[in-house]
Every structure is written in structure tokens, then in C-alpha cells.
């Protein structure tokens, strides 16, 4: 027995997965077995002829077994010379070899990433894939991480059935990740469990470190995470060392290419002038003649529209101090001279330029009898194609395991990251300015200072180049230590006790400087330095006891019980100061300005305490049963409703094991189903239970003394408490099949699910009569999601050299809001410039984030048509003064009278579209031919609509005097052009054109995108081995190569919040990328 111990230790090292549980059964020998034992030894090798360390070698039908050592060798005492060895290891096909009285057996394992025996990490346990009863998507990590993205979440797009990811092209921008539709009106982000530690944030995870990734989608798999399971759970396991010391370098360098040309189809200066003269001539700019004349100069002093030779165009009068500190007084003294850019400025190309992207990763790993280690360092650097935006990340990771004795293991997984970035915000941001700033405005004035909309008739947009130049010293810096330490003890043959203490410590800070502006129509005159910082920690202490055993050869039982405690604490603070003598970034701090400093701070704490239980039972490898339950206590609820219980049951039937299903082409077929309850408490503020009063300098202070300069502190009710809030119940049913056909050539998984969310915690708006205090979360909402997730993989070996692997993934979800509150049946969001009329209506009976407004039927083409409609309106209403629709007029939109009452009222507004796709899909094709490998990934979204708010700015003349589109110039309604796209161009806003949301903005946003195509070449081993290299691969890659879509905007991939998304008001587009990369191992 003692002689076996090192080998056993090897087993434990290799098979400990990230959460530290055994992948294979614990093994001990009985005295009985030893007495009759016959030794058998051998070596397990892989495809490449190298020894496979840590492979499990078992005698079939017994508990006798061992694991291979670092070189793949094993020795085993078998009861007698007969029987069969079962050899298995993650990543290889399981193989059975009859012993046939041999004493030496060499076994060659075939690689199989998708083998049914693949061990996947689920909640607090591991299971073989064939035994899964819940809906678990296993992500092909090696394919996923080919996508050159800053974040793992972006890479996940189209890689796992049931997961929908939306993002923008902004480096480091947060992605919207949803698993199976929506579960709440608040935060829908899934729970991430990294090496057993729950977290909400994986932005700083180094993709190169990921060994495996599973998505738990249904209650059967996720309910073990109880109150945090409702949004789905993504389990990530990071890499561990094995075999001999190995050094791996992976890197790429590339360029990101923005779209080129007149991407918004904007009018040039001459076209703008003609449009202006048609609508409301700006004489100051284009003269008083019959036809507009482009001026030579835009702004000169306080004048607009001068010609060459005018004495006022005198450079000696020029006076602009770009870094002025004298406020609006000094600003008023400026004498600008701005030459018109008659050719037109392409503002998009002024702010978007090709930018580099690179990633370098070094990993050192190894393992042996004493334990294993994995160390990695990564540098990722993505410059934004948008000027002065970037994302830079440094990560180091150290994972190690120490085998203290043969049955005690201690280890840790720790990652430290530093992120340095600069991003722009959403909504009306600098990209919005790039299509609003008139094209006649040059970037710079005659002296090289910024030019802008200052002057008459030039609108009020801001110079986007100036805006971006002014964020050049802003900086965000974040760092995080994340990971855990753990210890495991095996005892009494079948038990493993594990304790893990993990969590994160983070801090981040952001500083920015607001420069005074001088070039625009509406200039900010203050200079202000802002700095903010946040830090916090949270810890999760998990203790589990695992029992695994097989009875009578046919009853496999796994039981886990445990406790988990979680505590989270955060802090933030920040401030600002105005009035800086100098704007030198080395001078500006919160303490150096002359103006009044302001400051704020906040902190919060919340906790969970949980009891965990799970039971997995497998009868004869045919009948599978899974039971999970979790009892969570949360500090976010009052004492009466503090605890919630989340049970789930799931079962599977491997029909292919039945004698009546021995069909040749069916290798494996399993039907499974599950039912259970998940919870969600993320959105409930820790103060939810309390009615509180607070003060705020801006909103509750008052100058009761009439000082004109000082306010006195006042209080107001700041929060209405709901001590009765209780757990929501997210009831989930799931039915699915897993099939392996044609001897593993085809793998298929499909699931249908329904999620009913009852007692959904939501904070519906109170009637105005209750005041404006923060309203509490109450258990009021109801929602339903249903859908299908499916994935199919085919493995085709065309010739012995040519192999294809094709995976297709399909995701659908149908979301329906069932209840919002006892009163209102909807809540509206996103008024943008509609000033109180909202674009988005979340309404009972519809999906989240539906677009809402008036349906356009056409234009009012003639006075007769108008008169006729008004007469009908008079008849219908009995009111002789009735008009069919407010602002009715020639060339304006005719709205549909959807309720048939004869006139247009707010009741005629309808759902105009939905940003929720009918389905999304991903298709991944890889091919290997000799030393070449090729892969491509296509992602698509079908049936989603986009609200193209850009058109509000560019297609309607009165919507600010900014740049207008060529549609407004050439394709607007006129008496001669009734077959128009845009309505008549006027200088007043109207209900019947652009003042209210209507169907003009809704477009089909379906698209298909070539996300990635990669061609690699692996150098022959013989060639490189003399340089000490194990392998060397080079590749070229293109990402986002093309997109097929009918959408008229720049990029149909539009993100947003949970309850409001799919609005394009100048989205940061995804860039085409070209890369070269290198993978080397030693």
C-alpha cells in the first residue's frame, strides 16, 4: 500500500479540479484484494506518444484503480489476471482494455475534447458529462479565446447556447450578458463562479488562464447557487499545472480598422446651405442673395459669415486663450477667426483612426508528486480607434496545489490585475457630436486652436476632436486581487472535506479634468478637477463535505452538504475643485484649485449565509437523478423574511443504455428534465427595509437666511422602507436531450425551458402623491421566459490529414412581462430628446425594452387629404373643431388611428418593434490539414429591431442646427417629391414630425457577422526541437471581417441596459481587426 502512495498522490494532483474536488473516486485497497493481487504495469500515452500523467486506470466493476505518474506509467495490483482496465483522462476518449493475463499493458488514448466522460464542474461538484441532468452548456474555451477581445464576456458571444451577449467596439466596455432572457427589471448579469468563488465581475480575468467554462442555465443545475442563481451561473475553472515544467508563450499583434467614408451620409456644406435656404435662410451665414453663398469665414470676432478681404478678418485682432481661467468674462473678450471648410469636414474620420491591439501571455506550469503550479503573466493593450480611448490590462496568476500527505491537499488560486483605461460614456456622447457638428466647420481655426459652432446658424454641437483632446489626461486605474485558498482532506474511504476561503479585494480610482471651452456655441467656462475612488472587499467561506460511493456496482451516489458565508463591504469617495491657476496635469489635484472643494463618500455592506445540499444518483448508468437545495439568508431582507429555500430536482434517462435502444448510429442518447426554484436578491438595496431621512446640499438645503450664497441644512424623507420584502421565486422547468451519434461524429444538445418569475422584486414607481423618496423593492412583478437552446457539433475526418469540426449554436428566448405593479401596466424609459415622451415601453404582455410610439402611415400629400381626415374626425368626435392629428400639415407624417376613434390621441401609440432577437446563432468551423489549421466563426442575430436615434438629429431640420443627412436634402417630402423618405423640412418641431417617438426610427437590426477567421501553421516538431521548443505555431487572423445587414447605421450590434436597449445614438462600432499571432511552448 505504501508503495502506491506516490502514484495515488499523482492521481489527486491531476484530477483535482478548480473547486478542489476529486474527478475520480477516492481509492483504497482492501487487504483481501492485496492478498490475491497480480501486478500489472504499463504506460498510458496520448496521440503524440507522450506519456499522459494523471490518467485514471481502473479495473472495471471494482474500486481498484490507480493513476499514472508524471511519465504516464502505472502499476496496479489486479485481483487476478482477468478483467478489464478502464483508462480515462480529461480530454481523451475513455478506453477499455482487457487484461488477458498480461503483466504489461501499454495503452494509447485518443484525444477527445468532447468525450462523454469529460468531467465538468458544476455547483460544488463535478460530474461526467454523460451524467448531467441539468442544462449545462460547456464552452469550447480554446475556440472562444481566439476572439481578440479585452473581455471574456465579449468572447462568449455565440459560443454557448442560451447565452446572449451584446456589446460595443469600445475597448473594455461592459458587455450585456444574459442567460435565457430576462429575470428581473434590474441587474440581469449572471453569477460567475471562478475556481469556486462567486463574483459579479470577470472583466479582469485573463482569457489565457481559463481551462474550462460551463454555463448553468436551469434550476436543476443552478439552484445550488440559490438566491444568486436566477440570472444563470457561469463556472470558470482556471488552469493548473501537470506533467513536466512547461513554458508557453501566446501573443498577437494587430490593427483595428474603423469604417471609412461618409458613414452617416451627411450633407456637404453646399448641400447644407441649399437646405437652409429652402427652409429658413440664415442670412448671417449664407448671405441675402437668391442663392446661398458659402462664406470664406465662419466666425470672425462676434460676426458670422465674412468673405475674404473683409477688414474684420485681420489676424492681428485674433485673440483666443485656449486655457483661459477668467470665466465667461474672459471668454467674452475672445476674437476668433475661423475659415470655412467648404469641402466639408468628415468628423467621423477626424475622431476614428486605425489603432493597434496586442496581447502577450507567458505561462509556466508543471506538476508532480508534491503538487502542481501554474503561473502566468499577461499584458493586454487595446488602443481605441476612437481618439484617446484605450484599455490596458496587466494580470498575473499563481495557482498551486501542495500534497501535504496522501490525503491532504492545500492550494490556492490567486490573480492580481491592474487595469488602466479611458472610455467614453453612452447616450449623447462625443460620437453623437461627430454627426451633429456641421461639416462646414473645420477642426481648427486659423491659429491652430479649435474651431466650433460659435457663430450664428452653426448649431450647438461641440467639436468632437476638441472634446476627445480634452479627455487626454483623464485616467482610470483599477486593481483587484481575486482568488482563494483551500484545503481538502479525504477520509473514511468515501469522504472528502473541503474548506475554501476566497474573495476579492479591489480598489479603483478615476480622475478627470474639465477644460473650459471657447469654440462652441454653448461653452463651459469653468475648469474643474474631479477625482473619485472606490475600494472594497468581499469574502466567501465555503465548507463542504462530499461523499461518493458505488453500491452493488449499480448504484452510484454522490452527496455534498455544506455551508457558505459571504460578506461584502464597499467604500467610495470623491470630490471636485474648480478654479485652477494652471491646467498642467501635474498641478491639478483636489487640493490645488482655488474654488470651493466638494466631496462625497458612501459605503455599504451586505451578507449572505447559506446551507447547501446536493445529491446525484446514478442507477446502472441509465437512470440519473439530481437533487439540489440551498437555504440562503440575506441581510437585504428584514428579519421576518430573511431566509429563502431554493430546491430543484432533475432527472435523466440514458435511453441508449436500454437494450431496446441498441441502434447502431446512436452512440449515446439521454433525455433529461428538471424543475426548481431559483432566486435573485441582487437588485434589492441593503437599505430596502428602512424608511429613512437624509439630506442633500442640492435638494434639501435652503437659503433660509436670504444670504444669496449660503444654504442651511435640511432633511427630507429619502427612502420609503419595505420591511416585508421577501424572496422572489424563479420557477424553472427544463427539458432537454443530449445525443451522440455515429460513434461520436455528431454531438447534439437541445433544451426547451420555461421560467416563471413570481414575486419578482421590483421597485415600481409610487404615485406622485407619495412624494419623491426612493421607493422600495416589493414582491410585485411577474415575468415569463421561454425558449430553446441548441447546439450541434460535427466531427468529420475527410482524409487522414484533413479534419473538420463544426459547431452550430442556436439561442432563442421569448420574454413576456406579466405584471409590473398593482396600478400601472407599464413603465417607460429613454426620452432622449423627446422630452417626456419615451421611446421604450416595458408593458405587461410584451417583451422588455419594446419600442413604443405612433405608427406612420405615410405623408399628408394634399390639402384635400388633410381636409378629408379632419372631416372624418369631426364626424367621429362630434366636435366641429376637431382635427385628425395635432400639427397636421402637408408633407408631415400621417399617423395610424390604431384605436379607430377617428382622431390621433396618445392611445394610438403602439409597440413599434423590439430589440429582442427572434434567435441568435453562432457557427464555428475548424479544419486541420497536416500542419495547417483554419477556423472561422460566424455570429448572427435575427429579428431584432433597432431604434436609430441618429436620424432624429440628421433627418429633421428643426432638431438643432447641426449637420443634416443627404436624406434631408434630397429625399425629404416636397410637393414635387411625394415619394419621399423624410418628411417636409421645416424650422419648427411638430407632433407630426419629430417631437414624438414614431416608427420613422425603427429599423430591422438583423445581421450576420464574420466574427473571426484564423489560419495557422504549426512548424514540424523536427525543425524546432533543436532550438529547444516543444511546439511553434504562427497564425494570421481577421476579426469582424464583414457584416451582412440591412441596418442603415454604422453597426447593428447595439447594447444598453436591461430594461432599455437597442437604441443607436452613435454607438462605438466594432472594428475590423487584422492580427498576426504566435504560440510557442518549451
Amino acid at each position, binding site marked *: 500500500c505504501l508503495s502506491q502512495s506516490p502514484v495515488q498522490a499523482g492521481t489527486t494532483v491531476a484530477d483535482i479540479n478548480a473547486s478542489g474536488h476529486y474527478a475520480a473516486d477516492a481509492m483504497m485497497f482492501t487487504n483481501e484484494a492485496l492478498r490475491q493481487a497480480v501486478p500489472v504495469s504499463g504506460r498510458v500515452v496520448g496521440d503524440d506518444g507522450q506519456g499522459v500523467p494523471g490518467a485514471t486506470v481502473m479495473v472495471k466493476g471494482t474500486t481498484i484503480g490507480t493513476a499514472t505518474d508524471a511519465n504516464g506509467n502505472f502499476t496496479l495490483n489486479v485481483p487476478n489476471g482477468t478483467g478489464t482496465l478502464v483508462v480515462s483522462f480529461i480530454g481523451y476518449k475513455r478506453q477499455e482494455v482487457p487484461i488477458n493475463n498480461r503483466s504489461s499493458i501499454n495503452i494509447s488514448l485518443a484525444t477527445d475534447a468532447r468525450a462523454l466522460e469529460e468531467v465538468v464542474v458544476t455547483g460544488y461538484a463535478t460530474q461526467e458529462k454523460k451524467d448531467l441532468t441539468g442544462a449545462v452548456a460547456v464552452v469550447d474555451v480554446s475556440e472562444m479565446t481566439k476572439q481578440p477581445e479585452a473581455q471574456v464576456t465579449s468572447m462568449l458571444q455565440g459560443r454557448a447556447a442560451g447565452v446572449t451577449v451584446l456589446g460595443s467596439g469600445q475597448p473594455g466596455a461592459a458587455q450585456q450578458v444574459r442567460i435565457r432572457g430576462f429575470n428581473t427589471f434590474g441587474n440581469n448579469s449572471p453569477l460567475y463562479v471562478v475556481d469556486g468563488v462567486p463574483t459579479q465581475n470577470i472583466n479582469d480575468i485573463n482569457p489565457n488562464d481559463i481551462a474550462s467554462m460551463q454555463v448553468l442555465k436551469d434550476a436543476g443545475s443552478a439552484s445550488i447557487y440559490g438566491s444568486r442563481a436566477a440570472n444563470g451561473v457561469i463556472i470558470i475553472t482556471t488552469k493548473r499545472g501537470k506533467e513536466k515544467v512547461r513554458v508557453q508563450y501566446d501573443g498577437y499583434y494587430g490593427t483595428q480598422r474603423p469604417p471609412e467614408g461618409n458613414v452617416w451620409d451627411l450633407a456637404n456644406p453646399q448641400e447644407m446651405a441649399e437646405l437652409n435656404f429652402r427652409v429658413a435662410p440664415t442670412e448671417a451665414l449664407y448671405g*441675402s442673395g437668391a442663392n446661398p453663398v458659402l462664406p470664406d469665414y465662419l466666425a470672425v470676432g462676434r460676426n458670422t459669415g465674412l468673405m475674404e478681404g473683409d477688414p474684420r478678418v485681420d489676424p492681428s485682432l485674433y485673440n483666443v486663450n485656449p486655457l483661459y481661467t477668467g470665466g465667461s468674462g474672459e471668454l467674452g473678450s475672445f476674437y476668433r477667426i475661423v475659415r470655412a471648410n467648404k469641402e466639408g469636414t468628415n468628423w467621423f474620420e477626424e475622431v476614428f483612426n486605425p489603432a493597434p491591439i496586442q496581447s502577450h501571455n507567458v505561462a509556466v506550469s508543471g506538476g508532480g508528486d508534491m503538487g502542481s503550479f501554474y503561473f502566468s503573466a499577461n499584458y493586454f493593450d487595446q488602443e481605441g480607434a476612437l481618439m484617446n480611448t484605450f484599455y490596458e490590462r496587466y494580470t498575473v496568476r499563481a495557482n498551486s496545489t501542495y500534497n501535504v500527505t496522501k490525503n491532504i491537499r492545500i492550494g490556492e488560486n490567486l490573480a492580481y490585475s491592474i487595469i488602466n483605461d479611458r472610455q467614453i460614456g453612452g447616450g449623447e456622447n462625443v460620437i453623437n457630436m461627430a454627426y451633429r457638428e456641421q461639416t462646414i466647420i473645420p477642426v481648427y481655426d486659423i491659429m491652430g486652436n479649435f474651431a466650433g459652432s460659435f457663430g450664428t446658424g452653426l448649431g450647438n454641437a461641440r467639436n468632437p476632436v476638441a472634446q476627445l483632446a480634452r479627455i487626454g489626461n483623464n485616467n482610470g486605474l483599477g486593481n483587484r486581487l481575486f482568488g482563494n485558498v483551500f484545503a481538502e482532506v479525504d477520509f473514511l474511504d468515501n469522504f472528502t472535506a473541503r474548506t475554501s476561503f476566497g474573495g476579492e479585494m479591489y480598489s479603483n480610482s478615476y480622475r478627470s479634468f474639465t477644460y473650459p471651452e471657447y469654440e462652441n456655441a454653448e461653452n463651459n467656462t469653468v475648469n474643474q478637477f474631479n477625482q473619485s475612488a472606490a475600494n472594497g472587499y468581499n469574502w466567501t467561506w465555503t465548507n463542504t463535505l462530499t461523499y461518493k460511493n458505488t453500491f452493488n456496482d449499480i448504484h452510484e451516489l454522490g452527496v455534498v452538504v455544506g455551508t457558505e458565508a459571504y460578506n461584502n463591504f464597499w467604500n467610495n469617495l470623491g470630490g471636485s475643485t474648480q478654479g485652477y491657476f494652471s491646467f498642467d496635469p501635474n498641478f491639478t489635484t483636489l487640493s490645488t484649485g482655488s474654488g470651493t472643494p466638494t466631496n462625497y463618500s458612501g459605503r455599504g455592506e451586505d451578507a449572505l449565509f447559506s446551507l447547501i445540499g446536493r445529491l446525484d444518483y446514478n442507477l446502472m448508468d441509465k437512470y440519473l437523478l439530481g437533487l439540489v437545495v440551498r437555504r440562503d439568508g440575506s441581510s437585504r431582507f428584514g428579519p421576518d423574511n430573511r431566509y429563502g429555500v431554493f430546491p430543484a430536482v432533475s432527472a435523466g434517462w440514458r435511453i441508449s443504455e436500454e437494450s431496446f435502444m441498441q441502434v447502431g448510429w446512436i452512440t449515446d442518447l439521454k433525455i433529461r428534465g428538471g424543475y426548481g426554484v431559483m432566486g435573485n436578491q441582487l437588485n434589492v438595496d441593503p437599505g430596502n427595509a428602512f424608511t429613512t431621512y437624509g439630506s442633500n446640499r442640492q435638494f434639501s438645503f435652503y437659503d433660509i437666511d436670504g444670504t444669496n450664497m*449660503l444654504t442651511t441644512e435640511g432633511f*427630507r424623507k429619502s427612502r420609503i422602507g419595505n420591511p416585508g420584502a421577501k424572496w422572489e421565486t424563479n420557477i424553472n422547468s427544463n427539458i432537454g436531450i443530449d445525443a451522440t451519434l455515429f460513434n461520436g461524429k455528431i454531438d447534439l444538445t437541445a433544451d426547451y425551458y420555461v421560467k416563471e418569475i413570481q414575486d419578482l422584486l421590483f421597485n415600481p414607481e*409610487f*404615485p406622485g*402623491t407619495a412624494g419623491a423618496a426612493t421607493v422600495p423593492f416589493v414582491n410585485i412583478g411577474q415575468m415569463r421566459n421561454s425558449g430553446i437552446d441548441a447546439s450541434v457539433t460535427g466531427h468529420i475526418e475527410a482524409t487522414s490529414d484533413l479534419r473538420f469540426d463544426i459547431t452550430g449554436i442556436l439561442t432563442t428566448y421569448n420574454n413576456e412581462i406579466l405584471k409590473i405593479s398593482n396600478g400601472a401596466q407599464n413603465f417607460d424609459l429613454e426620452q432622449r430628446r423627446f422630452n*417626456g415622451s419615451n421611446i421604450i415601453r416595458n408593458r405587461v404582455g410584451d417583451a422588455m425594452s419594446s419600442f413604443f410610439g405612433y405608427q406612420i402611415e405615410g405623408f399628408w400629400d394634399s390639402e384635400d387629404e388633410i381636409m378629408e381626415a379632419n372631416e372624418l374626425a369631426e364626424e367621429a368626435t362630434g366636435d366641429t373643431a376637431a382635427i385628425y392629428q*395635432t*400639427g397636421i400639415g402637408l408633407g408631415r407624417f400621417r399617423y395610424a388611428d390604431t384605436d379607430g376613434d377617428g382622431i390621433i390621441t396618445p392611445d394610438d401609440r403602439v409597440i413599434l418593434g423590439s430589440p429582442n432577437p427572434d434567435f441568435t446563432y453562432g457557427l464555428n468551423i475548424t479544419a486541420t490539414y497536416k500542419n495547417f489549421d483554419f477556423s472561422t466563426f460566424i455570429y448572427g442575430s435575427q429579428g431584432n429591431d433597432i431604434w436609430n436615434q441618429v436620424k432624429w438629429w440628421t433627418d429633421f431640420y428643426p432638431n438643432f442646427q447641426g449637420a443634416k443627412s443627404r436624406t434631408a436634402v434630397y429625399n425629404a417630402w416636397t410637393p414635387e417629391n411625394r415619394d419621399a423618405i423624410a418628411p417636409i423640412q421645416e424650422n419648427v418641431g411638430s407632433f407630426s414630425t419629430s417631437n414624438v417617438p414614431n416608427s420613422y426610427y425603427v429599423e430591422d437590426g438583423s445581421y450576420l457577422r464574420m466574427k473571426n477567421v484564423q489560419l495557422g501553421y504549426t512548424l514540424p516538431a523536427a525543425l524546432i526541437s533543436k532550438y529547444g521548443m516543444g511546439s511553434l505555431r504562427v497564425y494570421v487572423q481577421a476579426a469582424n471581417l464583414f457584416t451582412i445587414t440591412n441596418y442603415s447605421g454604422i453597426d447593428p450590434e447595439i447594447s444598453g441596459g436591461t430594461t432599455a436597449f437597442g437604441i443607436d445614438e452613435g454607438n462605438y462600432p466594432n472594428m475590423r481587426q487584422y492580427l498576426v499571432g504566435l504560440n510557442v511552448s518549451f
Partner: protein
Amino acid sequence: CEDEFLEKPAIGALSDEVLANEAGVEKLLIGAYAALDGIGIGNWETDPSNWVYGSVAGGEAHKGSDGADQPAINPIATFNVDPSNGFLNLKWRAMYEGITRANSVLSLLEVAEGISEGEKQRIAGEARFLRGHYYFELKKMFNMVPWIDETTTDFNQPNNVDIWPNIEEDFKFAMENLPNSQPQVGRANKWAAASYLGKTYLYQQEFAEAKAIFDDVIANGVTSNGLTYGLVDKFKDNWDASAENNKESVFAVQMVANDGTNTIANGNMGQMLNFPYNSPFRCCGFYQPTLDLANSYQTTAQGFPMVDNYNIDPLKNDQGITSDKAFVPDQQSVDPRLDWTVGRRGIPFLDWGLHPGQAWIREQSSAGPYSAKKFIYWQATADTYADQSSWAPGSAINVLIIRFADVLLMAAEAEAQLGNFAQAQEYVNMVRARADRPENIVTTYVDPSEPLDGFTDVPAANYNVEPYPEGYFAGLGKEEALEAIYFERKLELALEGHRFFDLVRWGKAAEKLNAFFDYEGALLPDVEGGFFTTGKNEYFPIPQRQIDLQTVGGESVLTQNPGF
């Protein structure tokens, strides 16, 4: 232990126990005052001056700016407003937030310990004054609104009861329990409450009750800082932060500049849009006085207003003339209050220089040639009273909810309604006499290129305003005397947010506003097609959002106003 681990208190807030004492209730009372400015719920939508609902809807001003900037104001201006208009919802919510804060004071006052009876009465008086004000705003905007007081626990109350009696009761209580003067000028006193009570009677056409109160106020009223009520000599002092809280200030929303928040939330944020464009104020070119309003200030040779025919020969303006082309202001005689109310080309714009006309107007073709002037801060004192910490200016100029000139003109109405024409005329003449004071003539600059160098004695325009001769009102008879009083309110209180509500309570809204739309709508496109419908547009619709939120079992407890 497990339970203790899960006990996490709310941070940064206080429970009512901590505030249930004199100091705490006082702080809540300050909070109730702080809701006066409407900021935090809305900005311009909830501005206490009611520039949108009182003045733009009253035909005194255009929305201004670009055609589709703040589009929700367009239907308010033209009476095409529908219940889903977001402005109305914000106004509703801001007023109920004020009411909630006043109710917080009153309910905690009930349970607070250690407060003397006298102090309790004063605190309750102030809280009920404020509540009365917030309800008055709701009443004149929406007519039927739910009554919520400190005893209400179910906020889903119907709007089926006329709340005038409740408003009266609040102001009466305030009048009876508040002191003559207050240690802090921002607090309401007895006389502010009395004036508001008089206004409440007037709105209900209870003229005798109104007269009785106004008699008392005019005879005995003092400001919170103890000044006997009167008209300040300089009309402009009503909007000069350095001269505010004067004897004319009956009740004002106190504004501050540069209060250390680096925002203008306490400094007239609701009017931040209402400055000339491309000007030293930078933004935003809203709130442009109408041609109709400017024309109203024309006077006859006797210095009387042209009550019925002021639009026949309109005041000459610079519409369609670029700033670099010559323009001479009209030489027609005008009431000097014109040039404290309406910024027009060629006339000193306070001490900021001559108004340059088109160059300061954002889009003349849609909203005309004028700029609003009353809430403009002075250049000489801008460092102190203006706040530039936002993208548009803030200022320390108080918003006068009631000023003494308003009281006099309301009293004049009551007297005229009761047949006391001489007394009515005396009150009107007090107001006109002040306008006629030499200080109230706008004079030219010493040097137009250096406006801060000061003013000459030379009038900037042909000013002529005179009090009415003795017996004038009696000669006019009741209807015409009232017309004269109404017109005086227009001239004196223009752009102070009263006009629409005055027109409605006089029953003159359809007549005056439709005449306005006929005239102005033919000249400027933004009010084209405006029409006031009698029996409907007297009140704004109950916000649809509130109707939806107050739904129980599919039926709303709120009843929509007629016609919507």
C-alpha cells in the same frame, strides 16, 4: 450569530426617531422650503416661476431656442397638450414632494418631544403655509387633485373633492399662528400667509373675503424681516439679488449662487435656459417675449396703455434684420417697464451692452426678436450673484411668489368687483406711479462699448407712463375698469408666471389667447395653430402617468379633466 451576521444597517441616513425633536423637525422644515425650487424632480419643468405654464402658455413668451428643443413645451404653448406630456407629470410630482416634506414636518411634530407650544405653532404654521402653496400650484394647474395630509397613510387618494377649503384652512392656520416677522427672512410670516389667503379667496371669486384680507395686509403687512409692505422705488430691484428681500417681497423662493455644490441646483436652475444665445450668458435662448407682449407696452400720448388696440400699430422690431445691418428702435412712446421686461435690439440690456438683436437670438425665424430680461443678473455684480458652474448660468435672483405690487393689483380687482372703483384705481395708480418714477427709466450708456462705465440721464427710448386721473375707473364702469386692472397686471407682472392662471380665473382665456394666436401665429410659426378651447383648456390634464399609477383593479381612482 447567524442573525447578527446578517444585520446590516442602512448607512448615510437617519430614522425618524433621531429627528423627532425640535432640531430635527426644524431640519425637516428647511427641507420643506428646499422643495420650493422644484429642482431634483425636474428643472425647467418644475421652476417655481411657472415660466412655461404661466407665461409661455399665457401668450407672454415663446418657447424659443431651436424648433425642436424641449418639444414638450410646444403643445403647452398651443393648447394641444395631451395627458402624456412629461412636463405636467414632473410638475405634479414636484408639488407632491413639497407636500410630502411639509407633511413630514407635521407628522413628526406630533410625536416630537421637548418643543414648546409656541414653537410648535410656528413650525406647524410654516409647514402648512408651504403645503398651502404647493396645493395652490396644483389647484390652479390641474383643478381637481387628491388631498394628502400628515394623517394620510394610503396615498392612492381620488381627486373627487374640491380642495379650496383645505388650502384656505392651511393659510388661515398659518396666518393665525405665524409671527409678524421672523428671525430668518426666508421664512413665511403671518402676512405672507394672509396675502396668500387673499389670493385664495380671489381665485374663488370670493371678493368680499379677499378685500377684507387685503385691506389688513395693505394696512398692516410687514415682511419677514420687519419691513412695512410697500413698492420699492426701483422696479428692477425686484430681480436684483443685491436688493432683494426688500419691502415688496411678500414671499420669495430664496436662491443662491456659488453655494459650494459646484452646481446651480439652488440657484435658479429652472431658468437656466432663459438667457440670450451666443451672448455673454452662452446659453440657451429660450423664453422669448412675444410680439404681443412687447406691443402691449405702447402708450398713448397721455401715458395710458392701449388696452384694446395695442397690436394695431405694432412696436417696430428687428425681425429678419441681421445684427450687422442698421436698426433704430421704435420712437413710439412706451411704458418704461417694457425695457425692464423685454430685451430688444438697441436698448441697454442691463449693464451688458446694447441688445444686438439677431446675434443673441437662437432662431429668430421660429420665435421672434426678443429676449426675456427680468431674471438676468447684472454684469457688475455677476461674480457674486451669478453662478457659472453649469453649462448655462445660475443666479441668486429670488423668485417672487407674491410681491406687494401683485397684492395691490389683486386688491384692486377685489375692490372693482365690489364696485369700489376709486379704491381700485388708487391701488392701480400706486403701481403705475412707481413705474413712472424717474429711476425706472432705462437710460443710455455713457459708452455703449463699455457698458460697465455707467449710464447717462438720457432715456433709451420714448418713455411715457402716467397714473390714471381721478374718477377714471368710475367713468369706465365695472367691466372696463376690470379690463384696465387686468391689463395692468399684464404689464406689471409680465414673465412672472401669472398670466395664464389670471386669464383663466377671469374667464378671459379663450378671448385673449385666441386673439393672441390669431395675431402672433400669423407672424411666427411656433404658435401657429394654437387654440384655446373653453371648457377644456382652463386646466391642464391630469398626468396620464399618475392616472396609471393610481389604478386599482383596472380602474384609476383619478378622474381626468374634461375634454382630455
